[in-house]
């Protein structure tokens, strides 16, 4: 489980990157699925996440398909960032 501070940071970055107006970090459940239900994100949002990982944490996905597991929830994203970040 990634630390609380990183989880909060990821939530804030998601809200900003995806222009989720009117949402606050408290509105996002870290364990809930990001795609399919919940926030109703789509394929372009997934591409924005890939950009976010690369730009803010120096993590480059070799294959966009890896994103499927990593972007399951805020918690899985934060975990991946903690393990792989280069900045």
């Amino acid at each position, binding site marked *: 489980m990634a630390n609380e501070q990183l989880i909060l940071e990821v939530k804030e970055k998601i809200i900003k990157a995806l222009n989720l*107006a009117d949402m606050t970090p408290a509105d996002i459940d870290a364990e809930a699925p990001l795609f399919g239900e919940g926030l109703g994100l789509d394929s*372009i949002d997934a591409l924005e996440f890939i950009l976010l990982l*690369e730009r803010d944490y120096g993590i480059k996905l070799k294959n966009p398909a890896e994103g499927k597991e990593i972007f399951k929830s805020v918690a899985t994203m934060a975990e991946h960032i903690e393990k792989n970040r280069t900045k």
Partner: protein
Amino acid sequence: MIVKLADNIISPLGVGTQANYRAVKAGLSALKAYPATDLLPEGYFASLFDDKASFEERCIACAEPAIKEAGIDAASDRVIFIISTTKANVELLDGASAGSTTVIAGCDRQSPAAAALQVSRWFGNPNTPVVVSNACISGLAAQIEALRVIESGRCDYAVVIGADVVGRFVISGFQSLKALSPEQCRPFDADRCGLNLGEAAACIIYGAEVPSSPSAPQDDRKEASQDDRVWCAVSGAICNDANHISGPSRTGEGSYRALMAALDCLSQAVIAGSDRQSVVDDVAFINVHGTSTLYNDEMESIAIDRAGLANIPVNTLKGYFGHTLGAAGVLETILSMAAVEDGTVLGTRGFENIGVSRTLKLSSQNAPIEGGKQSFVKLLSGFGGVNAAMLFSRLYKDAVFTNRLNDSALLKIDAPKRSIDFVENSGNQIVKENAPKNLLRAKHNVEITPSRVVLDGAKLNVEAEGPALLEAIYRKYIGDWPKFFKMDPLAKLGFVASELLLQAEGGDRQPTDKRAVILFNRSGSLADDINYQRGIDGPDHLGSPSLFVYTLPNIVTGEIAIRNKYYAETSFYCIPEPDEELMQGIVEESLEPGMSAIAGWCECSSENDFNAKMYILEG
């Protein structure tokens, strides 16, 4: 139905239609590996010109020989220029945006309409040129516009030019979408993993009638070498998926609908004495979009299968030229015509093992056309949910006669001879509905500028102005479509304007294929183009995929179609000024009887500077 007078192609594979056709037939490809850059550290495959030329120069160089060959006077007011492009001069933003936007504002050639004027004026043409900016279907949408403008009698000849310049902006954008293949593309193959970009310019010229006079003195020697058939653009259709701005429909909805509509010929031309099946029986092949992305190729296979056409050979030319964007529809049409003349179904370069869910007749090898078939179908799909299909037929010259006096004609295909005859309209055999001029009525209208919102003549009280206005309208009057916040300023403007119109209209909103969305502006998606360019000019050179998607102006029409489940045509045109008469003419010619449209001007050159004047138009 309109007649092709001349064509030309300039691509990295060669100069001239025949040079390109010979190269393709020989299996050559212009796709090659390019070294890594700051934007693309892994390098990429593309088909690019070695020499650099501006967008306008490329258009002019391509059109000039075609105009000469067609023997038309380009300076005549009976000629219109229709330009198909997705990004026109966007690459001029490169470097220019590093400092401020004032540099850009001073350089108006970045507005597609301004670039088009450079081209049409170079030829001395007095008419307003029309830019078709309908994402990757632009090349067919432009030919459909040619069909309409000539059939309506607004002009006698249309010079259709398709071109795009591929540079850092476009390449990084497709990279941000993870759509680029790291190797030569493999359309429909099980191992396909994306598209290659390509540069090209292609020009096709259409007229209402066969140009040469059969009664002129004939040179026997010359006559013997000439084929007595001409190419006709018979019909075409554009349909929206109403599904997603960048993801193709999983059911091939729009592509299937466009395909069926083009084959049914709708009101463009009805073929007397023959049904849809006899039209289908003459189709030698379907030249599809076939970009080699996972979802496009799968979607097209579903659409073709749903239309019951999976027994017709299918090919795509992306393996030879890459995806040439605004040029693609024109280039691929011209080469398909050359292939039919040569009795050949061109092979799909890069294809080996079928990798789509439906069984299609695909081959990497050229094959002879069976049964002397003289028609083909061209398909394209693009962002914004757009799909287009056109039917082209090669018909006997002496049989093509248009009765333009009463503007009604009966088209008849004599199956064994494969010729057509136009006969005088008689009694209930009217097959073409001729709408009187100005039949459209503005049911509701809305005007939005940074300082005011006026709906059906009444000023709305919105407590905001300038860049904050559109969000204020959304919050006060709409509020149930959070995707609004992801839109670029142009899409936000068109979206709120359409919502206000629909609220004025009232009633239940039902999915429909009877309402089109047709919008116009001058500068395309310039506001979002500048935003995207800022990203790639930044320290990481990373462009945002969601910003890139909106760098296609037709996305706003797609957003409206998706929100309301409109399966009819969506189109976006760039013209220099909000010329009401021109817009009305284009919309009128686009609508089948019984249809309505959300249409009008939707211009947004920056977040501070926008102007919409849109209508619900009904017949």
